[in-house]
């Protein structure tokens, strides 16, 4: 079994994003999805600090400190993009106007609860940013994460043990082992990495899984 690389995971997410979609890509791994969106597809990237129609990073030397993304990295604006203030920007998210948010995670539960903002460590300084707004901020919330912790524990869990970011908000999970839908009937495996049998995935994951019906993808 050869795990999906991060680029493969990002490319797999990109495949699910159709032309015309309004999309927010979270900080970290989800940001890589932008590199895999086909150039011929017009897709609208939203950044919660106040822009729609976000373009790629600027050429070295032409960074503008007033044009940054939610990760505070310099970006560009596509022709046809727009700027707006924070209340309007989060209204777009909270109001359900985005088609997709793509987020990283520490844990996702079988019912779609998301934990991605706090490890629960006692001494950690809590910081949430837009994580909770993103978790409820799109018609479909997609999560990208390693299937297991470095210690080999499944990050897909019956109940999150880390502090929650949102309740029943995740629609699909992309890991280095599989693509899994969160459905009212539980977790449904859409696809797995080559060489990984369904039963083995179920054993690794440790929560009930079923095969998605052919039409579910």
């Amino acid at each position: 079994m050869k795990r999906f690389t991060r680029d493969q995971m990002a490319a797999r997410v990109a495949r699910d994003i159709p032309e015309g979609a309004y999309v927010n890509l979270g900080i970290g791994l989800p940001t890589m999805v932008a590199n895999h969106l086909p150039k011929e597809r017009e897709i609208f990237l939203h950044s919660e600090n106040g822009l729609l129609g976000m373009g790629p990073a600027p050429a070295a030397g032409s960074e503008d400190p007033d044009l940054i993304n939610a990760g505070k990295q310099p970006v560009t604006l596509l022709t046809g993009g727009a700027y707006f203030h924070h209340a309007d920007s989060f209204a777009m998210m909270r109001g359900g106007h985005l088609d997709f948010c793509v987020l990283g995670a520490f844990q996702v539960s079988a019912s779609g609860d998301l934990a991605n903002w706090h490890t629960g460590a006692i001494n950690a300084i809590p910081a949430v940013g837009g994580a909770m707004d993103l978790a409820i901020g799109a018609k479909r919330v997609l999560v990208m994460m390693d299937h297991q912790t470095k210690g080999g524990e499944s990050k897909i869990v019956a109940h999150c043990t880390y502090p929650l970011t949102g309740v029943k908000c995740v629609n699909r999970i992309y890991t280095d082992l599989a693509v899994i839908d969160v459905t009212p009937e539980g977790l449904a495996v859409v696809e797995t990495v080559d060489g990984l049998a369904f039963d083995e995935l179920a054993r690794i994951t440790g929560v009930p899984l079923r095969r998605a019906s052919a039409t579910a993808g």
Partner: protein
Amino acid sequence: MIDKTVASPSAAVADIADGATVMIGGFGTAGMPSELIDALIRNGARDLTIVNNNAGNADVGLAALLKAKRVRKIICSFPRQTDSYVFDALYHAGEIELELVPQGNLAERIRAAGAGIGAFFTPTAYGTPLAEGKETRLINGRGYVLEYPIAADFALIKAEKGDRWGNLVYRKTARNFGPIMASAAKCAIAQVRKVVALGELDPEVIVTPGIFVQRIVEIDVADQLSPPQAAA
């Protein structure tokens, strides 16, 4: 390539079905999407719930829609005007339902729908007949009324210019309800005086970003420049 422009007002409103909730922009005639309303009349949908600041003037636009008996209920702030005789007659005959909402609560409830707010406490109308039966609360010693969002299936609005992504700019006080209604409808349809090339609208100046607009239709300039009085 994403192109939200639609060939005609009729095509833009073709899927507005019986029973739909439709927001209609405009304050008086400023910002009223007359050509879209006319197309909605031709479309024939019945049993509509309409959200507008007023309830129509004379026999045109929204009043013509009312006169054609297409509207079951209207949510507005100021139905009674000197020339609102179509609405007046329907109301007195018990043939239309009225939900009267203070203008600022109307605007904020529409905004709340677009912004995903579940409900909000507003001081407007506290202690008045328009708060009767509603939940109230004292917050820091001031009285507030709990109001819920108003969402719609469609919004018909009028803007000055737009592009194929649906970005809009407005003209003077014709802006009024356009931006918030666009945000509160599943399908916002904007009639514009001019569709411009992508990039012609300055990103600092766009009032309604395209995410809030599903369809855009250019109306012949000559039509729009005819004074509203002449149409009446």
